[in-house]
């Protein structure tokens, strides 16, 4: 009898602990730390946010870890960028986690790119084009306008899953929007110095940034998205960059930067490694901080004298 009582008490304590935790916080799991940063800003004390990957990780080639599976199985809300950015790893994790609340179409599944007008939507869906994203370029987290869009989607997602917190979420979102106003003004000022600057990029991840700043992307080091360059492609790219007097080659930490250096060497362009996710570089601890870093590094690189070829 005593043992039965003890077991009952333990079960009740466990149930209470689980229930009280669930009542306290909305458990939000995001793919990117960018989304986690914005979710924390809007969710405040009402949410407990976990990002599945770190900012330094190549989000095209994520290695699944047990903690990801556990986090997804316990989550109330899942937030992804979408546009197939996470398609090589997140759907498999979601399938294994078997959390019905996070199924596409359910309120717990928040797709950050919903309503976003994507660039580079392929006219021809064929692997002749490389590792194409069928719905268009997914790197909207690197657009100066991306934070505002993602914040709106996350706000809607949090309200849908926790209607009682609507007022708190809307208040935090409004405060974040004010910060975004100030940040966007800074980035517009920086864009004045970047407009018309010819660059190459390793991967097609800075297209939205280029559109907003007026940077001209002459070409990409990759032959096609996800496909490494051939020697002939490098020759063609170098010719094009020389013709346009390209100043910069933009890249990320996970790119094949040996080939980036080779292109820069042959063109006299300067290599600029940009943070491509929150926490991927010093000073990029928040989404706004990351975009500040991106603009600052570009402006700084342009201020440097051209490299001799």
């Amino acid at each position, binding site marked *: 009898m005593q043992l039965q009582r003890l077991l009952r008490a333990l079960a009740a304590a466990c149930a209470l602990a689980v229930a009280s935790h669930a009542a306290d916080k909305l458990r939000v799991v995001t793919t990117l730390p960018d989304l986690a940063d914005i979710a924390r800003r809007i969710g405040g004390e009402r949410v407990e946010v976990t990002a599945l990957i770190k900012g330094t*990780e*190549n989000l095209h080639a994520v290695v699944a870890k047990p903690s990801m599976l*556990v986090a997804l199985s316990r989550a109330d809300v899942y937030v992804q960028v979408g546009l197939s950015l996470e398609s090589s790893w997140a759907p498999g994790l979601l399938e*294994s*986690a078997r959390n019905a609340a996070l199924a596409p179409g359910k309120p717990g599944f928040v797709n950050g790119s919903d309503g976003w007008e994507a660039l580079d939507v392929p006219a021809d869906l064929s*692997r002749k084009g*490389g590792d194409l994203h069928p719905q268009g370029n997914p790197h909207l987290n690197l657009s100066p306008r991306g934070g505002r869009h993602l914040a709106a989607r996350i706000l809607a997602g949090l309200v849908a899953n926790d209607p009682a917190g609507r007022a708190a979420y809307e208040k935090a979102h409004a405060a974040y929007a004010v910060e975004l106003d100030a940040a966007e003004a800074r980035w517009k000022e920086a864009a004045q110095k970047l407009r018309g600057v010819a660059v190459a990029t390793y991967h097609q991840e800075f297209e939205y940034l280029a559109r907003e700043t007026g940077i001209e992307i002459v070409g990409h080091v990759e032959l096609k998205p996800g496909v490494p360059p051939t020697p002939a492609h490098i020759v063609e790219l170098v010719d094009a960059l020389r013709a346009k007097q390209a100043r910069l080659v933009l890249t990320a930490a*996970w790119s*094949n930067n040996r080939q980036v250096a080779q292109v820069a060497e042959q063109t006299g362009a300067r290599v600029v490694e940009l943070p491509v996710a929150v926490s991927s570089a010093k000073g990029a601890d928040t989404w706004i901080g990351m975009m500040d870093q991106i603009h600052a590094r570009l402006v700084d690189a342009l201020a440097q004298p051209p490299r001799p070829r």
Partner: protein
Amino acid sequence: MLRSRPLHVFLFASTVPPLALHAQGAPFQTPGMPVVAGGDASGQTTRFSSEFNPAISFVLDGLATWEDVDGSDSGLDLELRAGELGLTAWVDPRAWAYGIVVFTEDEVALEEGAVQFTGLGGHRVLRAGRFFVDFGKQMQAHEHELRTIERPAVLRAYLGAELAGDGVQFDDWHALGDATVMRYSVGVFQSLLGESEEEDGVPHAVDAEQKDLDELGYTARLTAFTEVGDAGTLQFGASARALPDYAFELDNGASATGLSSTVWGVDLTYGWVDATNTRRFTTGLEWLFDTGENGADVDDQGTPLDPSDDTLDVHDGTVGGYYAFADYAWSAQRSAGIQHSWLELPEAGEPTLAELDLYYTHGLSEYGRLRVGLTFVDAEDGADGVVAALQYTNVIGAHGHAVNF
């Protein structure tokens, strides 16, 4: 034909109502005919509809080998080792199904055809049909998906080059803390004899078509997957495959029946990945024991060299073996590794066999892969040699198997 069909099959078939399975019926229906799409409340497809077609894939696995092994013909061999057609689709809100048809030089075979039912709640999955068994780290995978060109020698010898069974498997996982998961599965199958080439004059394993419950084949696996520091993962597991009742046969009709054997395995795998997910190091070990009546030799009784009166000499005992590997990827496209496999063969005298593999893999794109391999064979019975291979694998379309971690 009808008379030869078992009675219970006939009874079952004759009582199945003609419901569902749309898009198979006649264009114009009369009562009692198979129901076509739209013929009841739920049909949404017609025989010419493509909206609900499954994901389709085709894998080309080409191999060029040059071998110089004692007792075998030396030389170059170019072959399309396999073409693999895959179909996958959700079939209702709680189940998805897939089929894998493999075309080889000798045959066309349904290697897998199964339904995964996910509606049991939690992380439970019930799989039914024909599928590769859950044993260790490799046996769920088809050959074209391996890290090496061939499966390790110990797995080929104890379980078969590929091991599919017709049956049912229950699978579940639980979280242990925030960074560890534990998964287990149990399966019951009609037959669990691995794929192996039948050679004249060599005993081959066979299974009865009708069995009692205690004669079915069984599998079980328990595995835990955890994180080690910021960049590492560690997985360990234990697996078993039991054959409670099977037989060996010879071409001359000689047989040994009522045999049983069990293969046990333990595995340990460590993975490390750098902060950008680019450089990766993986190392692992799997140790197997094959116990019971696990092999048979030909006993050349009666007239010497006359196979018609040969009998079988069953090997009854425990043999063991392992494979260990380490591979390193220094970019998203390039990796190289080394693997060593050693085993005792379940034959008279338990001779040993060892294979050392060196391999380099070059990813051409998301769908294409080129691999170079060099295998050194060291057999106690004297069949030593070397095999060099070039493998080209290409995946056309959306491809996947129901492989679990």
